[in-house]
């Protein structure tokens, strides 16, 4: 039960990233899967470089696709995804890499430390965003205006492009570092991240049905989906 809860936390935060990049950056970011995998491979060297590389790819994605409409940006992100996957395949193709992991005791439960850390980071991310969503500071209002219509946002004096860049950078960095943590203890392959992306995309799609309440209902949705399948 407790591990289910931790997984749900992680998927909820990943789905949050998917949802944010869909609504604010207007792209169904298909490169998240490869970024997740990249995080896993990078964690062989160091966990601290994962968010940096993730952020860098997010920025690349933003710069590459900022003048495109939603469908083209999505196709662009698919291209980036395949490119990253291919690069990983060339660099690491023949190795069966089993990532290190540590055991951690949590109220009598044995857990993998990195997974625990990943869910704690996710929880923090979710709580911060929830507070941001419920307290509605001015910056949240700005984000909402962008979500509805970028043109309008510009007329409201909001720098939509900057917001887009920030969302893509943060979500990619988040995906990358969670990938580094959550894949530890596993044997990884260049395509492994697709599973996590498709699953979080699935949760995000269900949550998206609730429209404005989507962000608040992400965690329950994620929990429900994890419990059901």
């Amino acid at each position, binding site marked *: 039960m407790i*591990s*289910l809860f931790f*997984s749900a936390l992680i998927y909820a935060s990943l789905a949050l990233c998917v949802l944010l990049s869909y609504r604010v950056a207007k792209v169904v970011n298909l490169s998240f899967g490869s970024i997740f995998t990249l995080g896993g491979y990078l964690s062989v060297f160091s966990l601290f470089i994962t968010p940096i590389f993730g952020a860098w790819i997010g920025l690349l994605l933003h710069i590459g696709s900022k003048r495109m409409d939603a469908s083209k940006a999505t196709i662009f992100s698919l291209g980036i995804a395949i490119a990253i996957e291919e690069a990983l*395949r060339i660099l690491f*193709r*023949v*190795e*069966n890499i*089993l990532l*290190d*992991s540590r*055991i951690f005791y949590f109220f009598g439960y*044995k*857990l*993998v430390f990195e997974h625990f850390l990943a869910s704690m980071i996710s929880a923090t991310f979710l709580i911060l965003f929830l507070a941001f969503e419920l307290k509605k500071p001015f910056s949240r209002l700005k984000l909402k205006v962008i979500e509805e219509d970028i043109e309008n946002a510009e007329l409201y004096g909001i720098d939509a492009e900057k917001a887009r860049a920030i969302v893509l950078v943060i979500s990619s960095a988040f995906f990358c570092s969670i990938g580094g943590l959550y894949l530890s*203890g*596993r*044997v*990884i*392959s260049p*395509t*492994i991240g*697709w*599973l*996590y992306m*498709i*699953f979080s995309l699935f949760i995000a799609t269900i949550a998206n049905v609730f429209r404005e309440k989507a962000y608040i209902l992400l965690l329950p949705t994620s929990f429900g989906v*994890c419990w059901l*399948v």
Partner: protein
Amino acid sequence: MIGKLKAGLIVGLIVFLLFCATPPQTPTPQPQMPEIKIGVLVPKTGEFSSAGLVMENAAKLAEKHAKEMGYNVKVIIYDCGDKPETTKTAFLSLVREGVTAIVGTYSSPQAMTAADTANESKVVFVASVASADLESKVKTGNKYVFRNAYNTSYWGILAIEFLEKTKAKSYYLIGYEPLKTFNLGMFSLIKNSTKAEFRGESWVKSPTVSPEDYKRVAQEVAKKDVEVIIVGDPGLGSVDFVREYRLAGGNATIYSVGGTLALPDILAKLNISGIAFQAAALEVKAKTNLTKKYFEDYRKYYGTEANNYAGILTYDAILIVTQAAARGGDLISNLERGTFIGAAGVYEFDENHQAKWGSEKLQGTIGIYREGKIQVVS
């Protein structure tokens, strides 16, 4: 810009056409010892590329050892990818190279396609890894296909042997849903012929449908009182399952049908005691004089531990073909009648062209990883 691109395209294609049109070079015949050309199909790219590297290394090692034995062998390695389509094309390109026989391929669909292509192009194919239903091909008249790897039922036989050797009183089966047809065959064999008590079975869903399903199964099984758990998924997910099972407090011995959990590097890094696995051969249990040589030289030349399934069987397949071809005459009847030495034992083929695994001189090995060391169970 576009015009230039098109022009470039056209030039490229003309070059390609010219390349196609050049007549194939005819090999100069060697008068004394005829060269034995053996084609090897290795999944260098795609899903199985990690196994592909091991197979490639093993094939090169086989060439070297065969030469040391005095055979004039040339091994030609081609990438067969992870799809039957790529396998068929690679097979035909090897045929074009004029090989005596072709060994290798990894997955079952690849082996099936290769078997059909062998029949069409009249070139012997020795399946060294896949466990597909190749016997039926032989029964229906395809004389060109042989297999030195074990077939599906032998996987079950080894598992039964393990249960008997360890005198386990109870066992539990873990299947992998996408491999259901394969797993079910093996499971029914185990259920029918062991005295140990069957305590139930669980199926892990494909991670694509539910990436966390292995956790559910692991926790469910950890609560069960059972001595041996037989894992039917040799894929990457088995590592996740084993770790989760131990974290959830389960302490039964885990028996894996090979795959990832039989890789020495992975076992050492995972460092979880009580994982049993089946292998074609193990270094600690020499079966022929080639066994030790294989493992030692592999380490010497490639710097890693030898994979004990895909690698060793590819190695053996090359040696089998070499020995059969060197005898001269019809290769098929040589293979059907002869005995051949490999690193995993002494091979003979039955009437369905399947290597006689389980015979006196050719037996699988079961190892168990305990406290940092691999011990031989049988």
